[in-house]
């Protein structure tokens, strides 16, 4: 068995992988996916020696829908719904950094109300996406009740988002210079009710899932990523935070209203699957705090169009009336064909699975010259290759579920 030569750090980090295709032939090769309940829309080719995984080779691209290329042919704002399809259960978080990149090129700053609105929807999405992750995780370790409960409660958040934006999943909510809609009148009560409900439910989740003896036994000590290796592999989001890396794009480079609201970033030291589940669990609690604060702020401050004056000033008076009545910002037709000044920008935001990065380059036309997306799942995919070997076959779904890998996002 040949071992990778790995620079100077080899002995220090113990990061040794085996070269694919060079391993001994007589090992059992099992193809997990793409039609397999233990993998989503991807395939993991594992080779096992007895019950131990010797090598895992993630075979991605089953959901590669060529977003980067399609974006080069579409107008700036038409790319928002396109990028949203990467992770539709986390739509606002995924697109907000693209919008921020556009705003950086345009050199505008959205009004504070728009910032709070975006933050509100981002956190609602984050909870929904974490619950989605919990549900899939539950099903992966055979716990169907966790799947059903978290999907049932996810509907609460989905409905909240629907009230705010009008769509269950694909909100297309943030737009350059602001947000598309103000909150409806009865939204604060509904949001507070949902927060109260969730605080109660989270206790029950803890009892049936995180503190369940069978679950604990399955998760503890599985898929351990030590801090140094986590940094070396460049994992993001809850995976990194469970390994003791205190990194969150909301802290590192605060966007929207995150520098004004109060929240903590939970960091765990263990780095195993249980710690990753706990990070997500604690993050839901923090998101609830942020939702409360954002709703309070929005209620305290007067309603005004949540969009930059550059776009709003030119709007006809009728549209202002529409906003007064419905809270809906109508877009100028020129926005669809808007030309951006030449320039390059990069922006990051923290989605539920970790940090997403957009590199946007404009050459002065109405379509981007290049958009580069690096999504959290794409960066976490490397975990399969380096962390899964050495664990048992039955640990593979645990690792998969705990890093909350979402193939459409990874493949773009």
């Amino acid at each position, binding site marked *: 068995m040949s071992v990778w030569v790995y620079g100077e750090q080899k002995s220090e980090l113990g990061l040794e992988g085996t070269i694919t295709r060079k391993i001994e032939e007589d090992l059992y090769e099992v193809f997990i996916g793409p039609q397999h309940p233990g993998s989503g829309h991807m395939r993991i080719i594992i080779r096992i020696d007895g019950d131990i995984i010797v090598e895992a080779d993630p075979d991605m691209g089953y959901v590669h829908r060529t977003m980067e290329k399609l974006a080069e042919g579409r107008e700036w704002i038409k790319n928002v719904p396109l990028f949203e399809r990467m992770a539709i259960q986390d739509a606002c978080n995924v697109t907000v950094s693209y919008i921020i990149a556009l705003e950086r090129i345009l050199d505008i700053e959205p009004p504070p109300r728009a910032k709070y609105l975006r933050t509100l929807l981002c956190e609602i999405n984050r909870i929904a996406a974490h619950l989605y992750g919990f549900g899939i995780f539950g099903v992966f370790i055979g716990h169907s009740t966790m799947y059903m409960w978290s999907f049932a409660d996810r509907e609460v958040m989905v409905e909240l988002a629907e009230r705010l934006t009008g769509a*269950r999943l694909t909100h297309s909510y943030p737009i350059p210079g602001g947000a598309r809609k103000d909150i409806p009148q009865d939204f604060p009560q509904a949001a507070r009710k949902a927060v109260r409900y969730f605080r109660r439910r989270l206790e029950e989740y803890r009892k049936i899932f995180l503190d369940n003896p069978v679950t604990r036994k399955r998760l503890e000590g599985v898929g351990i990523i030590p801090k140094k290796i986590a940094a070396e592999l460049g994992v993001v989001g809850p995976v990194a935070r469970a390994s003791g890396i205190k990194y969150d794009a909301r802290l590192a480079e605060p966007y929207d209203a995150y520098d004004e609201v109060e929240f903590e970033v939970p960091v765990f030291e263990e780095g195993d699957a249980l710690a990753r589940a706990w990070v997500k669990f604690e993050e839901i609690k923090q998101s609830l705090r942020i939702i409360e604060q954002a709703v309070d702020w929005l209620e305290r401050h007067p309603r005004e169009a949540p969009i930059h004056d550059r776009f709003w000033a030119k709007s006809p008076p009728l549209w202002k009336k529409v906003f007064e009545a419905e809270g809906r910002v109508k877009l100028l037709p020129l926005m669809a064909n808007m030309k951006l000044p030449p320039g390059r920008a990069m922006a990051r935001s923290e989605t539920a699975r970790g940090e997403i990065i957009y590199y946007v380059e404009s050459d002065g036309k109405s379509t981007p010259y290049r958009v580069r997306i690096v999504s959290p799942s794409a960066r976490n995919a490397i975990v399969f290759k380096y962390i899964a070997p050495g664990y048992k076959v039955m640990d593979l779904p645990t690792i998969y579920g705990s890093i909350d890998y979402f193939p459409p996002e990874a493949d773009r």
Partner: protein
Amino acid sequence: MEGNGGNGGRVYVGNLDKSAKKAKQLVMGKLRIGKAVDWATAFSLWPVHLTTSCCGCEFAATWSPRFDAEQHGALPWVGARQTNMILIEGTVTKKMACAVRVTWEQMPSPKFAIAMGACAIDGGIFYNSYNIVRPWEIIPVDVYIPGCPPRPEAVARAIIELQRKIRKQRVVSKWIEEGWRPDKEYVKPKEDPCSWWRG
């Protein structure tokens, strides 16, 4: 002779095809239980676990407590061999097309297909992508669900539509009598979706 199954005439197994035909004649001709079979299949549409794209989110939500498609007897099942329905969830990429076709061929007849989402109808938002195929080029689709993504109610509705179709057009009992789906042509992909894999 191929393998040990070629002759098929061992004493204790018998000729399965022949005995199956006889049993079919007996059951369908004499007992007339075609209606019961249609009823049973309509309420036992088990979709296979194959998530092709992001509509899988709403697919999962359809079986969540709020919409609970298990009410209608549909239970997502793990292996292709034990199921009789495939639910295409959104875009099918060129790489995934192979998986879709193979899964479809693995499923035992009578089988049904529902295509979910705009992408499964004509590409949807990805209509000009270089890496997608239309599902109807690969498998015969019974019911289409528009929407991007369709709401869970729409998915449940599609299941009910399919149930109605099976019971009204007596798809399954006709399949048993004639050995093929009378309402659907056999779809053969123009180009082999697995060519990238077979090399």
